[in-house]
């Protein structure tokens, strides 16, 4: 009996001590801070009307989350992401989960390292679901008002929300760790970019087509097309405006938020993949701060306009070149940025030239 009491007193004391240390900030810690989604008449409309399509969004969440988990568990120099985990990810994509997934379920160890990032991605996924639901529910007539309310709810949590401004995607390529993930894991990176194309086209399909049957048909067709994007990716990361042109005009703030989410994801993937980054936690915190506070600019619009997505094999050529440059100790990302800038300038000059061509009427 004495032994039992001693055991219980010891445990209680340990618990109390840790609690006091946490409460007095003697032990570094984060709060859980989980928040429920905004209840609305439209909740689960996307799931109810397009369950298979909804499942692919779950697969998308899985694939994004598993990359972080593997990099954290096995370090930045593992080949799992390009082999076993890549195959598993394709399996999950082919047989998607029935329901939505939280990041904590798929990347429990990474969540311990960077809980705030996990919470931020889940909060953004909550907004994704709300906005898909609003579009999928024909009963919601004033979609703009519903969108405004859902976005306001998202932004009402400044610790979890990313900036609603158009933070230039360049920020992803301007860090000392930039490009690490793409160079080390080009196959898996192509998967992630494919979903950065698919997510927006779902918005575009739901926004443009009113008839649920037509929507289902077009969304299914895009799911099939997405398979081709895994092996034939675009030369740069797709932005929301690239493939959800009309929807991005309807809700530029939502488009900005999701571009910022994708940029942050890219930055964290690079941080986790880069052997140069020793303190991953601190660097992730810094990346989050950037994506919450940097001012917006017209840079992403310019990129969409003058550097259209190309699927001509240049992704693989670029990756091979970057790998080679890295071996030689050069800065591959700086080189890529320079080439992209040159390409954009050429396109801009061409657009200017075309503008100056006088309009010739028929018969003149």
């Amino acid at each position, binding site marked *: 009996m004495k032994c039992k009491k001693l055991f219980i007193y010891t445990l209680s004391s340990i618990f109390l001590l840790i609690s006091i240390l946490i409460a007095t900030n003697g032990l570094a810690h984060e709060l859980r801070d989980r*928040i429920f989604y905004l209840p609305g008449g439209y909740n689960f409309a996307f799931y109810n009307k397009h369950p298979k399509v909804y499942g692919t969004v779950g697969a998308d969440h899985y694939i994004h989350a598993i990359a972080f988990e593997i990099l954290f568990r096995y370090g930045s120099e593992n080949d799992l992401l390009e082999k076993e985990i890549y195959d598993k990810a394709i399996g999950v994509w082919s047989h998607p989960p029935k329901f939505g997934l*939280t990041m904590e379920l798929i990347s429990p160890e990474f969540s311990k390292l960077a809980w705030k990032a996990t919470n931020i991605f889940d909060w953004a996924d909550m907004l994704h679901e709300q906005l898909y639901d609003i579009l999928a529910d024909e009963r919601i007539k004033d979609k703009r008002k519903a969108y405004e309310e859902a976005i306001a709810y998202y932004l009402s949590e400044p610790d979890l929300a990313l900036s609603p401004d158009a933070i230039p995607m360049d920020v992803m390529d301007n860090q000392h760790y930039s490009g690490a993930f793409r160079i080390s894991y080009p196959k898996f990176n192509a998967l992630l970019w494919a979903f950065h194309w698919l997510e927006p086209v779902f918005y575009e399909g739901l926004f443009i087509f009113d008839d649920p049957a037509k929507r289902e048909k077009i969304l299914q067709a895009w799911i099939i097309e997405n398979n081709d994007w895994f092996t034939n990716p675009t030369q740069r990361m797709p932005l929301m405006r690239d493939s959800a042109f009309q929807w991005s005009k309807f809700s530029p703030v939502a488009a900005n938020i999701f571009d910022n989410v994708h940029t942050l994801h890219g930055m964290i993937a690079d941080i986790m993949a880069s052997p140069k980054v020793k303190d991953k936690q601190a660097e992730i915190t810094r990346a989050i701060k950037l994506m919450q506070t940097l001012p917006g600019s017209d840079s992403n619009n310019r990129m969409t306009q003058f550097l259209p997505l190309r699927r001509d094999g240049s992704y693989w050529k670029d990756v091979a070149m970057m790998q080679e440059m890295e071996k030689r100790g050069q800065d591959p990302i700086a080189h890529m940025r320079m080439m992209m800038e040159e390409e954009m300038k050429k396109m801009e000059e061409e657009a200017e030239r075309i503008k100056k061509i006088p309009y010739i009427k028929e018969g003149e």
Partner: protein
Amino acid sequence: MGKKILAILLMLLSWFSLPLYAQVDFRNTDKGRPILIEDAYPIEYLAFELQGGIGYEKDGGEDRLDFSPEFRFGAYKNLQLGIETSYTSLSDGRTSSGGSDTFLHAIYSINQEGLEIPALSIRLDGGIPTGGLGTDHLHASATALATKTFGSLRLHSNLSYTIGPTASEGEGRDISRYLYGLGIDYAWPLRFFMVMGDIVLIKPIDDQKSELLLELGTRMQIHPKWVLDAGIGTGAFREEGSDVLATVGITYIFGVRRISY
């Protein structure tokens, strides 16, 4: 008492018929659903949750059937409040039935699990005598909850102590003077399914000999709004424990603000 059960059922039905919107996290375990040991996480801020479970217990010549509804909500960030009661039917040669104590609880999450420290929470419960098969006194208990994750596997520890008068023999089956338990669960996230088990040492509030309980259970998400659970247990390897325990339950989580356009 039959009217009370009917009233509870009608209340539950009225909840389910409202236009509620929900999403359940099957991994967020709760006390008694289906095992006693719970994780150190409260439900999300602004989430509401309804649970109902039916439990069966065989203890020597006594059969006991419980219906236990529970309502909880995320009252603030990291803070859960809840209320639970149960209605029991006992058969030990003659049949008696009645309500047990009603419990109000608060769970506050102190921290999110980090690389070293586990997730810790404090749970406070207040027991109010509200039925013939409960105690005659108010009780209050404090529970320390801890959760540590290892990939898909999690370990939980719950340690609880109750203050309040000692109950008469056989009363207050839902209250322990102290309780210490270790739990374990393993999830298959893509199947939205988990299995769990625990071992719990309980000193009953009626000052009878302590019991050692072993439980196994499972939770499964069957819809974005619903989670099913089922569990079995036994205390049979100690003279004082129950022979067999079994429970099935369902959880429904929702938000209550409806927006129409």
